[in-house]
C-alpha cells in the first residue's frame, strides 16, 4: 500500500493541547515542556527534532502519560483509536492505562541495551509482555518471530539470547519488535538510533519506514539529528526551548525552513558537500528550563531579534497556510535573506 504523504492533518490520531510538563525545583518551577500544541495525523511519520534539553524526550513521555516523578504533566492529550471513542490520555484509570500503553501506543527508547532486563532472555521479555496484557502467548510469539524476521533477525536465535549477547543494532531491532508485539497503532520512538553507527542508523531508518508502511503505523520519531529524519518523516516539528517553533511537511522544512533556529540548525549540520568554513555552530547556549527568555525564547541567539522579539512570544499558528508549514517567528518574511541556507540540497527519498 502506498501511504499518503500528509501535508496537513485531517484525521488526527493525537491532539495535544496546552500540554506542559513541569518540575518543582529549588530555584523555581522548571517547565520542560511549555504549553505545546500539535496534532499527529493517522498513519504519518512525524519527526520531532530538537537539541539536548529542548524537551523532546518529555514530549515522548507525555504521549504515553509516562512522565517520571516528580514531573507534573498538565493539559489535554486526546488519542483517537482506529475504532472506538476518543480517549482522554491524561485522565485514565490504572486499568485503562494498561489497555492503552503498549497495546495502542508503544514506545522505543534510546539505548536498547538498557531497555532489556539483563538477566532475562529476549524471548522472556516478549512472553512476559504478552502474558501481562492477557494476550495469547503462543499466537503472540508467532507474531514476534515474524516481526523479528521482518527486521532481518534470526528470530529463534535472538529469542534465546540474553540482552548482552546481542550487538547494538540487533538489540535495537529486537526492542522495536518488542514494542510492536501487541500490535499498537502508534509507535513513539525516542532517539532510537542514537547509540548506533551511521550505517546501522540508516538501515534501521529504512526498516522503520518499511514497517510503518506495512502495518499502517503512526510513528512519532524523536531525534536531534535533522538529516536523519529527512529520509523518514512525512512532517517535521522542531522543538526549541520546550516549545514547537516550526511545524511543516518534511521537504518544506528542510528546503525552505521558516524559523531562524531551524535554518541555523540546518547550517550547523555536518554534510559532505558543505565546505567546512560554511558550517557553523549556533552561537550562544540553549536556554535553561527555569529561566526561559521572555518574549521569543530564541531571541538571545537570533540575528533578527529586536525589541518586539524580546517582548512578545510569537505564536506558532498565526494563520495556517495551505501547505501546513508554520513557524513561530515575528519576521518569517525576513528570515531567508538574513539566515541563508548553506546546505545546497537535502536528499529526501522519493
Amino acid at each position, binding site marked *: 500500500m502506498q501511504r499518503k504523504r500528509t501535508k496537513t492533518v485531517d484525521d488526527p490520531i493525537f491532539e495535544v493541547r496546552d500540554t506542559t510538563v513541569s518540575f518543582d525545583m529549588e530555584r523555581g518551577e522548571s517547565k520542560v515542556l511549555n504549553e505545546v500544541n500539535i496534532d499527529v495525523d493517522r498513519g504519518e511519520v512525524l519527526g520531532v527534532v530538537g537539541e539536548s534539553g529542548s524537551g523532546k524526550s518529555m514530549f515522548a513521555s507525555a504521549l504515553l502519560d509516562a512522565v517520571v516523578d516528580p514531573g507534573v504533566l498538565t493539559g489535554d492529550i486526546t488519542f483517537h483509536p482506529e475504532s472506538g471513542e476518543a480517549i482522554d490520555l491524561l485522565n485514565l484509570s490504572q486499568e485503562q492505562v494498561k489497555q492503552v500503553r503498549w497495546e495502542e501506543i508503544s514506545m522505543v527508547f534510546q539505548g536498547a541495551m538498557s531497555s532489556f*532486563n539483563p538477566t532475562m532472555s529476549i524471548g522472556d521479555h516478549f512472553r512476559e509482555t504478552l502474558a501481562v496484557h492477557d494476550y495469547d502467548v503462543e499466537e503472540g510469539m508467532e507474531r514476534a518471530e515474524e516481526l523479528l524476521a521482518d527486521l532481518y533477525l534470526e528470530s529463534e536465535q535472538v529469542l534465546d539470547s540474553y540482552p*548482552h549477547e546481542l550487538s547494538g543494532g540487533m538489540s535495537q531491532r529486537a526492542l522495536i519488535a518488542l514494542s510492536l508485539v501487541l500490535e499498537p497503532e502508534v509507535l513513539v520512538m525516542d532517539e532510537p538510533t542514537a547509540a548506533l553507527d551511521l550505517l546501522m542508523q540508516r538501515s534501521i531508518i529504512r526498516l522503520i519506514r518499511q514497517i510503518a508502511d506495512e502495518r499502517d503505523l503512526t510513528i512519532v520519531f524523536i531525534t536531534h539529528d535533522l538529516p536523519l529524519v529527512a529520509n523518514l518523516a512525512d512532517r517535521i516539528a522542531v522543538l526549541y526551548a520546550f516549545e514547537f517553533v516550526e511545524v511543516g511537511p518534511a521537504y518544506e522544512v528542510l528546503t525552505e525552513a521558516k524559523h531562524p533556529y531551524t535554518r541555523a540548525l540546518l547550517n550547523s549540520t555536518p554534510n559532505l558537500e558543505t565546505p567546512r568554513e560554511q558550517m557553523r555552530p549556533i552561537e550562544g547556549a540553549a536556554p535553561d528550563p527555569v529561566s526561559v527568555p521572555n518574549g521569543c525564547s530564541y531571541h538571545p541567539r537570533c540575528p533578527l531579534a529586536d525589541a518586539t522579539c524580546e517582548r512578545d512570544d510569537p505564536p506558532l499558528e498565526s494563520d495556517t497556510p495551505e501547505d501546513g508549514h508554520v513557524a513561530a517567528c515575528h519576521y518569517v518574511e525576513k528570515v531567508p535573506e538574513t539566515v541563508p541556507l548553506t546546505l545546497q540540497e537535502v536528499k529526501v527519498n522519493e
Partner: protein
Amino acid sequence: MYILKRLGQAFVTFVAVITVTFGLIRAMPGGPADYIRARVMRNRGSEGVSMSEINSLTEAYTNFDPSTPVYVQYFDYVTNILQGNLGQSVSFAGQSVNSLIIKAAPWTIFLLTIAILLTFAVGIVLGAVMAYREGSRFDTGSTVLSMFVNSVPYYVAALLLVYVFSIQLSIFPQSGNYAVGLEPGLTPIFIADVFYHAALPVASLVLTGFGGVAITMRGNSIQEIGEDYIRVAHLRGVPGRRIAVRYVGRNALLPMYTNLMISVGFMFGGSVILEQIFAYPGLGNYLLQGIHARDYPLMMGIFIVITAAVLICILIADLTYGLIDPRVSAGEGKEAY
C-alpha cells in the same frame, strides 16, 4: 579451560598456604624439635633419648625430619599434607590432628551455616525494603541502624549477650555445644539443645552482620530501580510486584552471591574468638588451644583446613556464578573478590 585455570590457581594458593605454615614452623623460636625434645626429656629424664629418636618423633608430629636438608623437609611436609596427613597432635596425646579436626569441624560448620543464612536473609529483605522506601523515615532509621551494627565487632556483641543473657539472667547457656550428660543422637531433645546452645553465638554473628548486607542490598537495589529497563517494564505493563521481585530483587541479589561465599571465609576466621568466648568445641577453639599449648601440628593443621574451606567456597562461587547470572558468560567468570 577457564575451570582448569581456576583449579590450577586454587591449587597454587593451597600450596602457598602450606608453604607459609612450613615457614612459620621453621621460624618459631627454638622450633618444634626443641620443643618435642624438651617434652620427651621431661617425661623420661635426660638419659636414654637419642637424637635420631627425637628426629623421628618430630617427623611423626610435624611431617618432616629435622635432620634432613630443608628442601627435603619441605617436600615431605607438603606431600604429607597434600595426602591428607596433618600429623599428630602434641597436646592431645595420642590423637591425630585429622581426628581432632573431624571431631571439631561439624560444630563450626553448623554454627556458621546457620549464622550466614540468617545474616543474609535478614539483610537482604531489610535492604530491599529500604531501597523501595528510599528517603523515608524507615529508610533513614534502618540505614543508621545498619551502619551502627556494622561497626560493632561480633565478639563485642557476643560478650554483651553472654554477660546479659547467660551470666546475669541465665536464660541461655554460657558455653558448650550441648548440655553435659546429654546423649548425642538424633533425638528431639538433643537437637533442641544443640540449637539452644547455638542461639547466642549465632545471634552475635547475625546481629552484627546483617547491617553490612542490608546496606549493600539497598545500594544495589537503588541502582537497579534507576535503570532504564525498570521504566520500560512499567510501561510494558509488568506489575510492580513482579518488577520488585523478578527485576530489582533478582538483579540486585545476584552480585551478592560472591559476597556470600566470601563471608564464609570471614566467618571461619571469626570463629576463633567466638568459639573461645562460648567455649564452643569447634575448629577455632582447637586452634587457640593449639597455639596456647605450642601444639604446632594442631594449629597449622587447623589453619590449613580453614584455608582449604575458604578456598573451596570461593572456587565454587567462581565456577557457578556464570550459571546463576546470565550477564556473565562462563568463559570470563566474574572475579569473586
